[in-house]
């Protein structure tokens, strides 16, 4: 049971990075970046490639991966967002889908179609705590995510760059009048989002392996997490990540935890649990579309 909780927490940690990056871009641009899932793959594959080449732990590779992802994120913004920023939202929708396809295909061409493994953040061993086996990777994921989220928080609230980023996310027009280069800030935001997603990719590539085709699943989870937690809210992103993890780890394990449910196995299979997640997602949309932490949504015209 503790094992499951730990896994759920480390999964939440990684998904939080995904959801927060997604929300950062959403706030700054109002646009949905559907290539976000492919950021995970690229980051993971870079980590895997570097890992097999250099033989270093994930923590050492992290800065390189993040730097690379910043460039890719910025590049994507230049190609898929910038020329379409004044068009209706659906244009960016489609252009980012296309960019995701490009990133995925390029990854497959570069790295091959096989699943790959990246080195663990620190080590893949485990230690015993009161009879429970605790994986070092699982713990490192949580620690790393907390550090990254913390770093992001510090940047956003304490540094000048962060203030500028927030101004742009708050109101682009006012930011322009304040003399902030909105376009650069948007590029930076995309870069940060990509870096966060890439770090999650680095973590996943060790625990779960990484294949070029994984992007779509991560994208949907990010989308669901951001929506349920609160569209546009960073706190909500973490909450949403937790909800997704619960449905992924804890709901399917209910028959073990609560023996009386063991009779209804098929209701708690991974497929069924995913259906429950989507149903919960739909219920949230119907009754509280702004999610747990989002701002109240004005009823449409």
């Amino acid at each position, binding site marked *: 049971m503790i*094992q*499951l909780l730990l*896994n759920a927490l480390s*999964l939440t940690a990684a998904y939080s990075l995904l959801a927060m990056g997604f929300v950062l871009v959403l706030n700054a641009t109002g646009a949905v970046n559907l290539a976000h899932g492919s950021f995970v793959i690229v980051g993971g594959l870079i980590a895997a490639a570097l890992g097999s080449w250099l033989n270093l732990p994930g923590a050492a590779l992290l800065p390189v991966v993040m730097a690379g992802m910043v460039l890719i994120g910025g590049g994507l913004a230049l190609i898929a967002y910038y020329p379409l920023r004044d068009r209706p939202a659906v244009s960016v929708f489609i252009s980012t889908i296309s960019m995701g396809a490009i990133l995925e*295909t390029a990854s*497959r061409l570069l790295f*091959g*179609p*096989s*699943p*790959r*493994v990246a080195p663990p953040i620190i080590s*893949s061993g*485990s230690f015993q705590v009161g009879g429970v*086996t605790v*994986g070092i990777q699982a713990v490192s994921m949580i620690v790393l995510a907390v550090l990254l989220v913390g770093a992001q928080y510090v940047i956003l609230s304490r540094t000048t760059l962060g203030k500028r980023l927030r101004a742009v996310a708050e109101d682009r027009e006012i930011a322009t009048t304040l003399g902030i280069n909105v376009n650069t800030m948007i590029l930076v935001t995309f870069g940060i989002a990509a870096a966060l997603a890439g770090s999650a990719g680095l973590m*996943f590539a060790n*625990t*779960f*392996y990484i*294949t*070029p*085709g*994984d992007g*779509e*699943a991560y994208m949907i989870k990010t989308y669901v997490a951001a929506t349920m937690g609160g569209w546009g809210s960073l706190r909500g992103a973490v909450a949403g990540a937790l909800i997704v*993890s619960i449905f*992924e*780890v*804890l*709901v*399917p*394990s209910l*028959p*073990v935890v609560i023996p009386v449910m*063991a009779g209804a*196995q098929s209701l708690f*299979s*991974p*497929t069924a*649990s*995913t259906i429950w997640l989507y149903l919960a997602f739909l219920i949230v949309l119907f009754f509280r579309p702004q999610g747990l932490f989002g701002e109240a949504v004005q009823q449409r015209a």
Partner: protein
Amino acid sequence: MKAIGAAAFAISAIYSWSACAQEVNLTVPIIVPITGLLALEGTSQLNGANLAVAHAPAGLKIKSQVIDSGTAAEGGANALERVATAKDVDFVVAPLFGTQVLAMLPTALDYKMPILAPTGTGPVTEQGNPYMFRLYPNDAISKVAHIRYVVDDLKLKKAAILYNTTGYGQSGFKFMSEYITKLGGEVVFSEGIDLSTKEISATLAKVQAAKPDVILVQMHSASIAMVVKQIAASGIKTPVVGNTTIAMPATASLLQPSDLKGVCAESASWVEKGKSPASDKFLEDYIAKFGAPPDAYAIQQYDGLMMALTAVKSGARSAEDVRKYMSSNSYEGVAMTYKSDGKGNLAHSVVIVCYDGTSLTPKLVKRYDDIAAF
């Protein structure tokens, strides 16, 4: 003297002319998934096919035509429609993707074009289509070996079955649960997992709670690697007997040798050094050309294509000739002997390989030939 010289010249001219006349030009369309979820297996298939083209018997000039069947159900059928009318095409390599092959069957029948596919998924030879040639042992057969080994050799009867929710996984699960019950065992737990699912600790917790004495797996590469890794990491000691993907080098390379201790796999084909000159050449060339040992899909595709080329070499000049040959003759491939059972199933041998925990290459443990379904 001059007359003999002239005669010799004439004779050699006639000889070389008839030799040239014997050279056969053939285009072999290779329709495999190079993109999408089965890209890994499809690429293996492609590699095996390309090597067969390179090893083609003398006198055959083969041009291969590679077409990506992608992910859509009709991907293979569209491609078949395009190539089936070409004059120099007598047979087609089809994808390992069961759903795509099913969609291709009506087209193959319409054009009377034999298709060769290393797919194990059940229904493709149940449609009564004489143009379907299955290169991979039918799931109905390979799972016999899988379960036989577990029950007869390992003497284990309480199984937990984990499978992917793909055609391949669902088919394997169906047969495994049927067979183990037939042999007096029981399925204490089973769960289908989506290909994209990564977090399986809940499933493993449920497996442990069911207390099986063996864990049977029918999954694709990344999924089965994760299962094995997490089983090893959580210290579960229950033996694991999986499907062929865990015997694939691409899968094993994701794991540590220690993770694989006690893991066995049912594999349709196995090629070990020293078996025969032909198989040694195959192994060497494959490793030299593609940088890694071949997996079951590559091996099976190689053998199947070589069988068809042998048909051409022995005189088959049309699609109908090829079909006749493939339906009635037997062929000694690098992995096994292939002979149709009348329904298009060519492969009837399955091996069991096991890892000993010290290397990433498993060892052959048992061989089942001429298996009949239960």
